[in-house]
């Protein structure tokens, strides 16, 4: 029976955070080698194992207090820009909720960026990666809303102003309180 194809292994490798990629891929391959149907075994085992590996990595690299600080900073950024530029938007239906969407997406990007960060590759510049990545995701989300649910989009100047302020604040927070993913395994 043939083992899993290289392309499949590469696909699974992409999903596994770099800090634990080598050992998890090796373990999956070793276990499938002794199975009756290695390909099926590899697929099933990878599907069951990888989500848990990602969750465990996220748990190790996420500081809940820091995440809450980021959430507050991001929401306040969008809120402040909306307050200064277009206050009426805040009283519209779903106005306050609309301000939260880009922040939630940015938070998700920050969490994933930390979980998928390569171990021992920390620099002040790298700490701005996550917020930049998050801003990109927020813009993509708003573009998606603009095409499918226009009532949920934020005005462009609020999005750009709030995004820029959020980028500054989250970068500063990450510089002051470094995420706990410094060691190869995370918080050790």
């Amino acid at each position, binding site marked *: 029976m043939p083992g899993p194809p290289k392309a499949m*292994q590469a696909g699974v490798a992409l999903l596994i955070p770099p800090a*634990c990629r*080598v*050992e*998890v*891929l*090796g*373990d*999956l*391959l*070793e*276990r499938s*080698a002794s199975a009756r149907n290695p390909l099926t075994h590899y697929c099933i*085992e990878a599907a*069951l*194992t*990888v*989500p*848990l*590996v990602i*969750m*465990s*990595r996220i*748990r*190790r690299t996420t500081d809940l207090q820091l995440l809450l600080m980021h959430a507050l900073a991001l929401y306040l950024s969008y809120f402040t820009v909306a307050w200064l530029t277009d206050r009426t938007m805040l009283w519209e239906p779903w106005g306050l909720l609309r301000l939260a969407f880009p922040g939630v997406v940015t938070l998700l990007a920050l969490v994933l960026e930390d979980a998928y960060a390569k171990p021992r590759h920390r620099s002040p510049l790298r700490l701005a990666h996550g917020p930049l990545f998050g801003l990109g995701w927020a813009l993509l989300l708003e573009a998606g809303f603009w095409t499918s649910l226009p009532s949920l989009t934020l005005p462009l100047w609020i999005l750009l102003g709030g995004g820029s302020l959020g980028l500054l604040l989250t970068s500063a927070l990450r510089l002051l309180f470094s995420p706990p993913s410094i060691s190869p*395994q*995370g*918080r*050790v």
Partner: protein
Amino acid sequence: MAKADSVGQFEQLVLTAILARRDDAYGVSIHSKVEELAHPKAVSLGAVYVTLDRLEDKGMIRSWLSDPTPERGGRAKRCYRLEALGEKALEESAVTAKRIWDGIVEVWGKEWVRGLNKEWGKRPGREPA
């Protein structure tokens, strides 16, 4: 000596597996030992990874990457060993398990133990106590 955190049943199984595997404690070997200990319950590899990460965060085990091996596609193993805190936690768990055992035997008697041994003897990979 530092006080060991209390450990759950699955953590006890993983610590026991690391202890039993000695110098060969890595993902696959730990998983197979945990499956043997948890029989007849099935154990997923992912659950073992999550527990290993948690035990490492608690300072009960230590890990390092070994040299790459050809049967794993040239990939390294992450090996584990017990730290003093892990050994203490395991020792405390064993003492508690012994007390539970003694308490049950006191009430249910030797006959129950003989029945249990007979039952365990039938299971693959198990030796009667």
